[in-house]
Structures are given as structure tokens and as C-alpha cells.
């Protein structure tokens, strides 16, 4: 079961139930190029910052078109002192984080098995 803490037609953030102690799992779905994301980055950041958990796993496996605005969101979230993990980041996202030099700021949970690497 999951409940939306942010939901617009082109982008939503779902809070996953059954999380471990102190850790929150948020699933981000949609496209980072959609207006629903672009015009709400600050709002999404505030919502996530305001959550009490000290560790956040962002499931980005179904996130499309990661871009600079999404990178900015990630950087700002690390400023919240929360530990941020990225679940199944795409190669594009990993390369962008590496080029900007912040890949070490996140715990990366990578997919297993052949054919699942995106």
C-alpha cells in the first residue's frame, strides 16, 4: 500500500507503507521534464524535508528524463541532513551525479541480474 504525499497528473511522490525504523521509502513517478514537476520542485523539497524520518530511500526506478532540476532537488535534500539513498538510479542519473561530483553523497541501490540495468 502506498499513499501520495504529492500528486499531480505528470508527477507524483508516493509514501510506501511497511518501512523500516527511521527510514522512509518514497517512490517518485513521472517525468522530470513535466510542468507538474518543474513548477513544484520547491514544494516537493519542502514536503520531503518536513518528514520526520532521518533516512529517505528515493525509489527513482520509474522516473523519466532525470535532469538538472532533479539534481538540484537531490542536492538541496542532502542539505536537510537526511541520509538519502537512491533506489535503481538510471545510468543517466548516475553519470550526471558523477560529473557534478556528488555521487558519493548518496547510497545507491542498484538493480540485480542481467537486463535490469537501465
Amino acid at each position, binding site marked *: 500500500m502506498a499513499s501520495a504525499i504529492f500528486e499531480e497528473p505528470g508527477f507524483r511522490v508516493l509514501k510506501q507503507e511497511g*518501512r523500516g525504523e527511521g*527510514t522512509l521509502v518514497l517512490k517518485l513517478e513521472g*517525468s522530470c521534464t513535466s510542468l507538474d514537476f518543474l513548477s513544484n520542485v520547491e514544494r516537493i523539497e519542502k514536503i520531503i524535508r518536513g518528514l520526520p524520518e532521518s533516512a529517505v530511500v528515493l525509489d527513482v526506478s520509474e522516473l523519466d528524463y532525470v535532469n538538472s532540476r532533479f539534481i*538540484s532537488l537531490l542536492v*538541496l535534500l542532502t542539505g536537510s541532513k537526511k541520509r538519502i539513498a537512491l533506489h535503481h538510479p538510471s545510468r543517466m542519473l548516475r553519470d550526471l551525479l558523477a560529473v557534478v561530483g556528488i555521487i*558519493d553523497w548518496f547510497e545507491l541501490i542498484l538493480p*540485480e*541480474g542481467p537486463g535490469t*540495468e537501465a
Partner: protein
Amino acid sequence: MDIGGWLGRRKLEKLAEADPRFEVWVAERGLLCPYCLKLVAARGADAREKLFVHIEGICERFAEGAGSPEPMAAMEERRQFLGIREALKFHESWSITDKTGRWYCPFCAKPTKVTVDPENPSLDKLARLIPTHLRACFSYRSNPENFKPAEELRELISRLQQDEKLAAQIREKIEAGAEILMQVTRAAKWVCPYCLVCVEHVSLASEVLRRFTAPALIAKHLLHNCEGFRASRTTRPLPEVKARVAQLDGAGAPVPAKPEGGEDDYLSRIRKEIVEIRRDIGMNDELQQSLKKARQVVQQMLPKKVPVIPGYEIALHFKSCLDVGGDFYDFVEKPGGRLGIAVGDVSGHGLEAALVMGMTRKALNMRARGLTDPLEVLMHANSDIVPDLETGTFVTCFYGVLDPARHEVVLARAGHCFALHYAARSGEVRAVKSNGIPLGVLTGPGFDKLLTLASCHLEPGDILLQYSDGLTEAQDGRRELYGEQRFMDSVRAYGRHDADYLVNKVYAHVQQFMGEEPQHDDITLIAVRRKPA
């Protein structure tokens, strides 16, 4: 119980009161002995008493109080192992494998790298392998108690296999260029040829998306959301799909999802995003502060280990100067045992230099993987990064390929320091000269024409050295530069030794020269030595 036994028990009870290691339960089946890590089976209130009886009477590791309990981490690991073994014995969903023996995780329902030998299925072996998956399993980490019942798991696996099978067929068709499956709107959104719906989250805009992401998403759409696919497994005629795309675009012809150059396209997307990130950072103080750290992280990401090439010694010395330096280096392992070696230096400083450094390293690495000729690598890398450089920013760079079979290094140099060759037989050191201007100064033929190739044959004991100007421009208290002559003298003096010894001695010599003066720039030194016969 005699008085000695009674006293021993009191001591043990007192010890256990303050130590959580005496309270480690294994799936409600009993307590784990903190000394020998064996499971003492018992339930409820008796468990503690049985544990004490075991410790005092049977446990060899307790050794009448002389032994000490194992660390909590070891106990946790043992508890997980025993817990998994229990689950494997008693819960069907923990023992589901496919025909090839791949074990399916009862939490995420996905096939894992854990395999079971059907000839010799061993519970212990399986229980030891499963934690490697669970450590990375998102579903397990979210809730370690919530594994799926066997029936639900089998259904999920069957659905997943169906999805995977269809995704593989779609990937094949896309790779074969099936036009009907590649109709997208101007906004690069995929239009389903079965239901004619524009599926927003499916994009075919790049090679990566076409090969890895889109097939699975299309399969998911067809199997779970598509009315058209459910009703009939026949696509609509191509003109009808194209007309739908045109309609979605408002007017005009549809935009086919034509492959746009693979890695080039990928790199250009990264470039575009970097420009945007730079703009975002300029507008946001918090981002600026956060990313100041990023430059240091970029340097920390440089390879820490040198590659191992049979018959050769490779040594590296990199000393970063965190304020203004912009050095980077990279090793690219190539087919046939060859090795690409890059050393570069970005002008400018701060975050700008960090972004350019990261970008240049990525571009060089990608080009070096795909191309053999060092000239071509540098030419393409130049075209890749020129649009991203602000006026006045440039990158000097060396790129060479060591061919250990021919004992030859072919190299090119874009405004970077000359490589040095130490000849073991004569003990002489010479510069390996080639021409070229830094990356980012000129684009196209202007850059390409000025670039020349050089090569260097390595006899047994010979060394090729590449370095950055931070080494030759190190200053002493009188502002005198260390210079090339001192560097060459140093190489001559230590060239007979192995590569590690040489680079350490050269750097020690530079430090000695600098005395109390601070290091003003990064220093990079790489030595490639052919082992003596």
C-alpha cells in the same frame, strides 16, 4: 547445585542482565549462545534458564567464565543465517526457484543471482548466499518481516516472466527498427500502436531508453493497461498510428524515433544538463554552498588503483591542492591487453573547474573506449567539451595507448607537458615531442590540424613518464621553479629502480625543493615501466 555452582550462576545472571547479547532470539525458536553461537532451542520464560544451563554445562567457548562473548555483529550475522535456514525449512515461498536454479526472493519477487544446484541442494549453502541479495533488496529492507506467501509469489513471478518475455520481444523488434513500435510525438512520447494512446512515461529519445527502459515499460503497458492489446494482438495499420501521432502533435508529420547517434546523443544530453545545472547553481546560494564540496569529491573519484599489465609496472602519484588545482587522470582498459592513459589539467578553479574536469574525464573515457587512435580521441573529446567551456577555460591533456604486445606507447598531447622517456640502457632521459593545443581553445579543423602523433618504444627497464605542470612549477621560498631540468635529473637518478620507488622519490625530491612553501597546484605523476628482462 553446590555453592560454587550457585556463585557461578549469580555471576552469569549479572553479566547477562547488562549485556543484550544474551537476549538474541532466532525466530522465536530459542536464544543464541553468545559464546559458541549455537541455537539453544526453547520458548518463553524457560529460554533464559536453558541458555544458562547450556553455557555452564555444554558450551566449550564459555570455558568456565574464561571465554568472552562474540561481538554483536557476529551474532546478528549468525541470527540472520539461522533465521533464513528456518524460513527455508518451513516457508514454501522461500524455496522457489526456476528451471535454471535461480532463487526468487520472497520479498521483491525477482530472480536473483543466488542459484541452487538441483543435484545437490544444500540449505546451509543457500542460507549463506541469500544475505548477499537481501542486503541490496529494497523490499526486504523496507520491511524484513513482510515476505510474500508462496501462492502470491508464484503469481507475481509468472506475471513478471510474462512481462520480461514480452519486453524481450519488443526490444528485439525495436532494435530491428520496427516502425510501428517507434511512433512518438514531437515531445518524444510513445504512441501505442494497439490502443493509440500516448503513453507519457515511455520515451524512445535515446539509445539507452530504447534498449533498456522502453521495452519493459511498453510490455507493462500492453499487458496491464492496454485495451487494444487485450482485445486483439494485432496492431493498427501504420498510417492510422501516424495519423494519431499527427493529431496529437496538432498538425504536421509525425516525428519518428530515429536513432540519433548512440553515445553522441547520450553525451549531448549530459552536456545540456550540465549547462542547466550551472545556471541553477548561479541562482541558488544553498546549491552553491553545497556544491563547493563537490570539486573535492570529483578528485576523490579519480581511480585509486593502477591497472595491472603483465610485464609492466605502473605507478601513480597524485597530490591534490584543494584550493585551485584541476588535475585529473584516468586509465581505460582496452581490447588486446592495451591500456589508455589520460592525464589532464583544467584551467580556472572552483566549481567551474570541477564541472569541466568531470565532463572532460567522462568525454575522454567514452571516446577512449570506442576509438583506438589517440588523435581521434582528443579531437572528439575537444568537440564534446567546447560548447560547455566558458570563455578563457581550457583543458590541457595527454592521452596515450600502451600496447604491451609491441612494447609501444602511441600518444598525443593537447597543450600538455611532454611525456618523458627514460632509456634503461643509456640512462638518458628525453622528451617525447608531439604538437597540439589545449582542448577548448579552437574547435573543428583548427584544433585537429595542429594535433600530431608520437610514439615511443619501450625496451626492458625503460620508463615513460607523464605528469602535470604542478610538478615542474612547484616553487621554493625564493619563487624559483622546480623545472624540467631538476625533474629529468631526478628521473635519471632513480630510473633504475621500480616504478613505485621512482615516483615516490621524485615527489620527495620536489617536496625537499619546496621546503616550507605550500603546494600551489595539483601534482600528478604517472610512470609506466617495462619490467627488466
